[in-house]
């Protein structure tokens, strides 16, 4: 894995436009549709406007951080910008450059809080509740309380066994048990797992990826499930009987972060500023990936019905849970051990 990464990295470096006049910006992000959308709507326009080439590196997040940590030991960083989650910003803070939001003019058009001390929000989604109206007998579940209520909403459930499930799932249990969304943290794990014990026999699928959650919704394997909002959006457009709510959904944001000691930190800041501008680009990007972005003007360009489907619509935004990532970061091993131990029993 490491050698593969090193190989592809060196290939990418060799193949990059070595003769370009301006210094390139090295950006690490996940591949597939995300990469294609980034290239089309941000990397290419950025190159055209600034003359600074973007050297894109395709990577999975754990491999990317492993590389950053390894490079920190040798003192030579390869990436300027990386992809991060909220917990990453805390766990890897020592490797990140502080971002001076006042010096980036386009951040004035960003949603409040989108430009953070150590990161800029790239794609905004949430872990939402999705259900199949045929299977829950036409009723409309409103919150996680209904998800845990198998009497009134019968049918098999789906929950994730991937990503940050070690706090996503306990959070739903506490919300269902009546804890206010602002008083969740620090998580009362004993209470959460007591509640989780009640739903476990009804969980038919512990899904492993975004494709997987779509597939179990499509095949009718579950009546209700937690899902990435992007995948839920696709499914709700594809099937009449599949619905979703942002109520009590858990904020899940993809973030740009700048690596300390990277080859072109000024270029990285220029890219971040460029990224936040251009509402048309944000609309296309968000539509293509079924996500939302922090550019405020972009939301205005969408029809009202579509706006309501986005995590950053003010109504949806205010109903989301913002996890306490400082606490999660400090307790990650404990959270995971409890989760695996409970799940495999």
């Amino acid at each position, binding site marked *: 894995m490491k050698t593969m990464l090193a190989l592809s990295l060196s290939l990418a470096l060799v193949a990059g436009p070595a003769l370009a006049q301006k210094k390139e910006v090295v950006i690490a992000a996940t591949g597939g549709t995300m990469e294609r959308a980034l290239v089309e709507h941000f990397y290419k326009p950025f190159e055209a406007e600034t003359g600074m080439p973007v050297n894109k590196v395709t990577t*999975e997040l*754990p491999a990317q951080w*492993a590389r950053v940590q390894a490079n920190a030991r040798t003192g030579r960083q390869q990436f300027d910008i990386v992809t991060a989650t909220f917990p990453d910003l805390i766990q890897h803070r020592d490797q990140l450059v502080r971002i001076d939001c006042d010096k980036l003019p386009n951040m004035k058009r960003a949603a409040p809080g989108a430009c953070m001390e150590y990161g800029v929000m790239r794609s905004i989604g949430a872990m939402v509740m999705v259900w199949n109206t045929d299977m829950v007998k036409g009723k409309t579940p409103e919150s996680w309380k209904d998800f845990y209520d198998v009497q009134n909403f019968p049918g098999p459930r789906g929950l994730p066994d991937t990503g940050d499930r070690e706090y996503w799932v306990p959070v739903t249990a506490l919300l269902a048990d009546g804890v206010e969304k602002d008083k969740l943290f620090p998580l009362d794990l004993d209470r959460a797992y007591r509640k989780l014990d009640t739903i476990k026999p009804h969980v*038919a699928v512990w899904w492993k990826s975004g494709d997987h959650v779509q597939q179990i919704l499509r095949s009718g*394997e579950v009546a209700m499930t937690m899902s990435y909002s992007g995948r839920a959006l696709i499914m709700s457009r594809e099937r009449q009987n599949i619905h979703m709510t942002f109520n009590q959904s858990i904020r899940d944001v993809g973030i740009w972060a700048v690596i300390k000691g990277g080859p072109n930190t000024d270029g990285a800041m220029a890219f971040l500023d460029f990224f936040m501008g251009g509402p048309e680009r944000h609309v296309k990007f968000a539509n293509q990936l079924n996500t939302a972005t922090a550019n405020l003007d972009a939301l205005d360009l969408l029809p009202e019905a579509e706006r309501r489907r986005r995590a950053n619509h003010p109504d949806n935004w205010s109903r989301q849970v913002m996890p306490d990532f400082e606490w999660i970061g400090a307790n990650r*091993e404990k959270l995971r051990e409890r989760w695996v131990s409970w*799940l*495999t*029993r």
Partner: protein
Amino acid sequence: MSARRPSAFFLGGRHLSEAASLALLVPFALLLVVVFLLPLGTLLHESLLVPAPTLEHYERVFAQPVYLRVMWRTLRIAFYVTLVALLLGYPLAYVMSRSGGLKLGLMAAAVLLPLWTSVLVRTYAWMVLLQRNGLVNEGLTGLGFVDAPIRLLYTEGAVVLAMSHVLLPFMVLPVFSALKGIPDDYPRAAQMLGASGWSTFREVIWPLSLPGVVSGCLMVFLLALGFFITPALIGGPQQMMIATLVSQQVREMLNWPFAGALVGVLLAFVLALTIAFNRFIRLERFVGTRS
């Protein structure tokens, strides 16, 4: 004979000069060192000595019940898979060893063709068959055996079934070659001496095929212990095996030392088992020559 100088490869004989055998082993040994021993050593080194010598990761493996539980489950599933592969594979290998021509060719193809198909594809095929609205459930409900679809996927039975299917060739091939190596005269002689079909099998064929059975079982069992894709896709969390835990520690927690400790414990167990089995094989041979 003395007139002919033994060449490096000593044509006509069975022995190679020591230098020649060493030279022939070098490429493989190098590969083994670079892609297996080195990474494994690094991982174990991290688990024991980085940043300072410590046993804390190994202590965690034994202190938290979840890790031993998953380890135990891994052993249990691997055992069942070996048993199923043996029960399905032995009769097949037996028939193959007593057939020839087209019949043998067809059976060999049936065993070998799946080996050439990606494990992932075979695993997905099982998912399609076993899912809630899959072929098996539709058949069962259609024929009226069950009222509502039953849960087949994400169960231990499904994992054992799919893994046995994937690993079956590793049982059939060694058993087949052991059976093929038994001269036809032996069972014939047994029968001439009045042995029934069953006692011919029990007294002659089964003992002589044991080395093949043992190596087949060992191969299937060890491969099953480290299986990753199939249990991850076919099984639910209650079927999580040790390889999945190791990969989570590496990919999600970035905790290489603890992953190394999990690998170390598994490796110690596998080594102990292999040594024990080796003894067993030798014992069998000894018994075989005496009678």
